[in-house]
């Protein structure tokens, strides 16, 4: 058994034969063609067919992944309609008296080189788009059927790289997964993998020869691994996981697109927690209503030095745009305790969990905090961003945050930089915050209860110490009473309250949370649909009357 690592662009398990996909490179011959009009008529009809194919791809993408993401195919259509491109083809055909295939290949090369030479990463990537449309024309002109036709049995496709349109054109029924040596997790590939709903890896360093071709393989989209010639144990384990996934997929089929509403009409928002921008595909796949907790610290932890405002802005903007108007709650920097960042040069502490962390760092190092807030406020002009502050214990902290936020906005105003007005909320994860939640509720737009820390602080149990596991009871009535109290205080002040800790995904408590009136549950993407199922099957009134006064029962 050999294992290769890649970057996952779509989760899931695929088991089957591996097929090495060699690009059907269009061998273009330069031949003499004296009748230019005949050649150009062939060009015109090939172009018409290409535009038609792209329209099909566009419609498919529009329906499945939305307008912004489908736009690439519309851009391809416009490229085919480009005056310069078409003039170049016509010129070559007429002046050199050659076949139109040659003219298209030469024009495609010239134009893609022009983009490849630009001093801008984004524009350099467009060279691939020009190549893609030229290849499409050449395939149509060659009269060959779909050059991506596969063998007789479905297989794991391994290739050096795949163009966006190639990925879409691969015969879906014959592809179990695709794995590429090159390619980045750029949105095209990721989106297209999502359209096909199959596990996919990019940037996987494996040989494209007989040592893998035709061999048995397993792709694990969750861990980004491909196993070649897997041993029995791995195979059995993966088969089990595959079964689970199929079951989940079936659940997904029946639950996707449904509103989160109980039998007696109570609604709840089901959002996703994410720790990395790579998780976005999972968020969409599982039909999350929004992002309830975006852990911004990954941006800091992945870097060797402080991330710039621009770096952060691009990431926040991308998330906001991808979620297309759905709420994205971004938690400001939460490092310290178990999450350390060298360049912050923090001192060793006796009690890191009770120490210098999260908002405490931000308030004492306003330059770091302001950079993040600037990026967040600017990005919120591009979508529905909400900002959430961690580790709050008092009203004083909120006021200090507000002062800094006001300074940031004044600076942006002075520079004429556009920004949005994101909702401002806080995490309730300290007993202090829970106990004064009636006061805090008047200062903010929402609460999100962080049950992991709330439990550790309330029960005085160090989460990192395995010896204490038997004493760690997340269902402790103290915790449930606190949650109930926080929700009640939020509602009294007219704001909403959610839960973003692990407890939010605890299916044995979903009914209790509904009975308490929790407005939002933010859980890992994979837990959204199972929770939705419970919501759809619950009658809250009946449950409440059965359990009498909920709070006294805890």
């Amino acid at each position, binding site marked *: 058994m050999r294992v290769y690592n890649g970057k996952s662009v779509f989760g899931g398990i695929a088991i089957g034969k591996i097929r090495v996909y060699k690009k059907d490179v269009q061998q273009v011959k330069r031949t003499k063609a004296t009748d230019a009009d005949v050649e150009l008529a062939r060009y015109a009809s090939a172009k018409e067919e290409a535009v038609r194919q792209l329209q099909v791809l566009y419609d498919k993408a529009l329906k499945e992944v939305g307008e*912004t993401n489908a*736009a*690439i195919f*519309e*851009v391809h259509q*416009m*490229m085919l*309609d*480009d*005056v*310069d*491109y078409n003039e170049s083809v016509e010129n070559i055909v007429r002046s050199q008296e050659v076949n139109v295939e040659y003219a298209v290949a030469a024009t495609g090369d010239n*134009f893609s080189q*022009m*983009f490849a030479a*630009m*001093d*801008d990463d*984004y*524009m350099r990537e*467009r060279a691939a*788009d*020009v190549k893609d449309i030229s290849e499409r024309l050449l395939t149509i002109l060659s009269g060959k059927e779909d050059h991506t036709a596969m063998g007789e049995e479905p297989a794991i496709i391994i290739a050096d790289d795949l163009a966006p349109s190639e990925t879409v054109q691969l015969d879906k029924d014959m592809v179990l997964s695709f794995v590429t040596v090159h390619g980045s997790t750029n949105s095209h590939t990721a989106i297209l993998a999502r359209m096909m709903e199959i596990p996919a890896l990019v940037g996987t360093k494996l040989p494209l020869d007989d040592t893998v071709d035709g061999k048995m393989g397993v792709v694990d989209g969750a861990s980004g691994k491909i196993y070649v010639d897997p041993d029995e144990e791995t195979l059995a384990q993966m088969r089990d996981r595959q079964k689970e996934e199929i079951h989940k997929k079936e659940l997904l089929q029946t639950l996707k697109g449904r509103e989160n509403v109980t039998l007696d009409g109570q609604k709840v928002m089901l959002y996703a927690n994410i720790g990395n921008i790579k998780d976005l595909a999972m968020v969409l796949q599982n039909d999350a209503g929004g992002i309830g907790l975006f852990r911004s610290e990954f941006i800091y932890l992945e870097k060797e030095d402080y991330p710039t405002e621009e770096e952060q*802005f691009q990431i926040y*903007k991308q998330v906001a745009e991808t979620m297309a108007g759905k709420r994205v709650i971004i938690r400001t920097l939460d490092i310290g305790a178990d999450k350390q960042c060298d360049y912050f040069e923090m001192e060793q502490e006796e009690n890191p969990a009770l120490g210098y962390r999260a908002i405490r760092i931000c308030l004492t190092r306003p330059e770091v905090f302001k950079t993040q807030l600037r990026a967040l406020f600017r990005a919120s002009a591009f979508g529905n961003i909400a900002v959430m502050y961690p580790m709050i214990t008092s009203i004083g902290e909120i006021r200090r945050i507000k002062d800094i936020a006001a300074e940031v906005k004044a600076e942006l105003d002075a520079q004429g930089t556009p920004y949005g007005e994101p909702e401002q909320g806080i995490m309730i994860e300290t007993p202090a915050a829970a106990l004064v939640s009636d006061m805090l509720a008047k200062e903010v737009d929402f609460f999100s209860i962080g049950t992991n820390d709330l439990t550790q602080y309330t029960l005085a149990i160090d989460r990192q110490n395995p010896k204490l596991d038997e004493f760690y009871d997340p269902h402790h009535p103290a915790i449930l009473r606190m949650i109930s109290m926080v929700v009640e205080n939020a509602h009294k002040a007219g704001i909403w309250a959610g839960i973003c800790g692990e407890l939010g995904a605890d299916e044995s408590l979903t009914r209790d949370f509904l009975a308490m009136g929790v407005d939002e549950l933010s859980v890992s993407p994979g837990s959204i649909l199972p929770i939705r199922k419970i919501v759809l099957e619950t009658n809250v009134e009946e449950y409440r009357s059965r359990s009498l006064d909920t709070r006294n029962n805890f």
Partner: protein
Amino acid sequence: MKEFKYVITDEMGIHARPAGLLVKAVKGYNCSVKMEKGGRTVDCKGIMGVMSLGAKKGDEVTLTFDGADEDVAYEAISKFMQENL
């Protein structure tokens, strides 16, 4: 002939999508619409040319309108630039 100078404010500059929208908008008029940046001039009726300028945030571009309907085109396209770029 009419001329319109504009400094790009969009963070991404004239990337594929707005370039496509611009070309679409320009094609609705008969007059010629050209864009110049740093000494290079391209026809706004072709997406590749528009993209090849690589106009980024802060870059100044000059659009020229020439033809019978240049006045209406000028109005509409300058508005388009201000709203989208």
